[in-house]
């Protein structure tokens, strides 16, 4: 019974010899050479090496897209699901298995388009999991169609004269959704990624990170404006000046994301659905007293006589 399983401990177990990058590596990624997703994968290995969760308690979940191939490249329990539904699937795992750590990977299409509604609900319910959106502003797997984050004017196969629809502002969208940990990072900034991923994973609740990750095939140069090596400006959030619990301040910070600032926009503690459901279970069961489950159903039948 799941109720007998101890919740996943927030404090990582320390056994440095156990979980190595080698043990976590599976198939060689099928991504194109130069894809930003390689860096995300490498940093995720590093973070898991640092956290040392029991190998068998790590689950990687994804929907459909280039970045959603992630579970095949991780040697952990994994599930490659259908387009847009990775979050509800992960919700089912998270709520029914308090002992496992649930990580969800996906792209902007999965997160903000076909699965947009699920993002809002997983966030407001504050499901205990970590969600990394590898945002490349384009549909890559299907070879260059406009994505919900493509900027106006972006030329794609579905908008040959340039995109005409206002793109989603991921930070504002996530702030409105009710997520309790919201951050933004960049696949070219590995140290920053590592720090943000670690904080996201250690957050007790729905933690979501938008990670700008360049598609070198279909939208090369998309994030040069925030990449100093390519002439852009890299600006991180100074948390001595920005109160991460102030959503109004976070909204203000999210006003211009071209290129905008990177770091933690928002973080608050609110009870997770996992905890609230468990409380309901505990309250219900304490009212019933010491009865076997079979006897509970027997009693129910008695009332139907």
């Amino acid at each position, binding site marked *: 019974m799941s109720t007998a399983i101890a919740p996943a401990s927030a404090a990582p177990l320390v056994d440095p010899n156990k979980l190595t990058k080698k043990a976590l590596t599976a198939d060689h990624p099928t991504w194109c050479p130069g894809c930003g997703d390689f860096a995300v994968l490498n940093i995720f290995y590093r973070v898991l090496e640092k956290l040392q969760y029991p190998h068998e308690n790590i689950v990687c979940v994804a929907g459909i897209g280039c970045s959603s191939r992630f579970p095949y490249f991780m040697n952990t*329990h*994994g*599930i490659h*699901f259908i387009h847009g539904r990775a979050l509800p699937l992960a919700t089912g795992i998270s709520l*029914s298995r308090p002992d496992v750590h649930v990580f969800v990977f996906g792209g902007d299409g999965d997160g903000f388009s076909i699965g947009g509604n699920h993002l809002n609900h997983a966030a407001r319910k504050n499901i205990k999991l970590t969600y990394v959106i590898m945002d490349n502003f384009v549909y890559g797997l299907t070879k260059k169609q406009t994505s919900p984050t493509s900027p106006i004017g972006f030329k794609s196969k579905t908008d040959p004269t340039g995109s005409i629809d206002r793109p989603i502002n991921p930070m504002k969208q996530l702030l409105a959704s009710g997520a309790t940990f919201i951050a933004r990072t960049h696949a070219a900034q590995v140290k920053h990624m590592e720090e943000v991923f670690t904080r996201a994973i250690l957050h007790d609740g729905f933690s979501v990170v938008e990670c700008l990750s360049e598609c070198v095939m279909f939208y090369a140069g998309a994030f040069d404006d925030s990449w100093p090596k390519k002439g852009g400006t890299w600006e991180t959030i100074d948390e001595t000046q920005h109160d991460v619990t102030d959503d109004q301040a976070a909204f203000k910070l999210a006003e211009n994301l071209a290129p905008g600032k990177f770091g933690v926009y928002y973080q608050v503690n609110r009870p997770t659905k996992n905890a609230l459901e468990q409380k309901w*279970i505990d309250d219900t069961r304490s009212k019933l007293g010491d009865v076997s489950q079979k006897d509970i159903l027997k009693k129910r039948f008695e009332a139907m006589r």
Partner: protein
Amino acid sequence: MTFQSPNLNRANHPIMSTATAATPSSSPTTTLRNAVIRLAGNSQDGIQSIGGFLARLAGRTAQEVMTYMTIPSTISGGPSIFQVHLGSGEVLHEGDEADVLVAFYKHSYESHISALRDGGICFYDTADMGPEDVKHERGIVHISVPFTSATVEAVGGSTRDRGKNMFVLGMVTAVFNLDKEKLVGIVSRQFGKKDESVLRNALLAFDAGFAYQVGDIEKFAFVPGEATSGHRISADGNQMLTMGLIAAGVRYGAAYPITPWSSILETLRVELPKYGGIYVQAEDELAAVSMTIGAAFAGHLAITGSSGPGLSLKMEALGYASMAELPLICVNVQRGGPSTGLPTSVEQSDLMQAIYGSHGDTPRIVVAPQDVEDCFYIALEACKLAKKYSCPVIILSDQALSSRIEAFEEPDLDKHWVEPELDLSTRPEGFKPYPLDSITRHAPPGSKMAGGKYPVSTGLEHDEMGHPSGSPKMHTLMTAKRRNKLVQLAKELPLPEIHGDQTGDVLVIGWGSTYGPIKESVDRLRLEGHKAGALHLRHLHPMPDGLDGLFKKFKHVVCVEMNDSGLYGYGQLATLLRASLADPRIKSVCKTDGLAFRIREIVTGVEKIMTA
């Protein structure tokens, strides 16, 4: 036609017994074996509750019962009926026509007087109609009763006409000599949870109805039902499905509200925490099935469900469950379709969707309960099959089963209880998530892999290790692996028993909630001299091997279904049987009026095919 009395038209029916006995009351009492009472009013009059009390009483007095109700698909109010078929023998259907009609309003009278049999009794409320509104026809006995004013008089205060349902219940109790003491007990338990004055007013109205002198008609009494050794319970189909799922070890899942599925969602949401589980109200149907697949992937037996429109939305994910070979229970409480269709009516038009919905070749198991009691056992079986074959199982219930109340023997939980299990054992070296030579057994998160290689559950075509594979050979082998589970199951399934003649003129085939009406129709056909049998299929995909052998013993084979006969003249089950058995004798009796089959509709339809 079910009871007779000196005052009423006689009809000869073999199961009927009539005797006049002396009772303490001055009116003569007629014993009867069964009766159909139709209560017609508006949905806010509480006729469903009194119908429910009568049904529960039947369960407690070793009688059989089957109820039928219509619910307006409006938000509040609107005409509504509740029909109760009470009997001391086997009650297989809700009753073709009523023996007693209780009309709360003039509009109820006008809409339902045609449902009253010749010589039946009609009680009507004088508040809304008078003798001038009565149609004197077909020997019907009309009795005017002031339900409203008598209730107001009895209860007093400012209750107005609230409670007139209880007045009617009291009156019916007196007319049919029902067990007043037991009924008061049932009412008290129901209303006792509320404010004290609610129960007091209900009982005042009940007593007034019980004491009301309905005039010069004889009273009736049911012959005692055959007492069974165990306890009897009364419940509707959605309740029994839910209890079956819990008994089978289901503790997790998610769903979205839709009529007539919702009450299963509501009950699981409230009940599962008692068993340490969680049932989630999801944001939509796609999320509901996805969360459920998440719980299944996590190693639990999990269930989602909906009605037709919701099932359409779940189809992509159900295809995933077939591909990834995850065990999953999905209930479809069918209603009239397509689209929003007839949300509160019955239809059996989702059979093809259940079997073939989704895209690609998606083998899954489809089963259907035959009556309310069977809802419990079909849930147990569905869960067993999902675990054994590691694939989705669809339970096809319907609106009629979902809401009708029947009384039956309480399931023996000591025999049927299944303890939920989560297998987190370490998987041995060389573990294959998708072996070609055996059924997939997933290693859920939390299970260690001795070989060091962790599995990925996938919707891409894959090899035995779960690696994506576009190999033509692998797709052929894996498609066969998934399909062969059903081939194996078809061999294991027992052939259903034929009710009635084992060989002869006609075999009448059905599935789902038509079980009772078809059985009764076959009895009727046999009384009329035909050699007839009834065969009911609970396993619809796969069907058991060897049906053709049974069909060969009959001259005619007729499928009775509540769906459209379609372009080629055959219902959905008939189409499947014709395609798989290539037997051109298989014919259809179909209907699409959103109502359960009446006996005479089946008998007439079958006879028409036999004489064609």
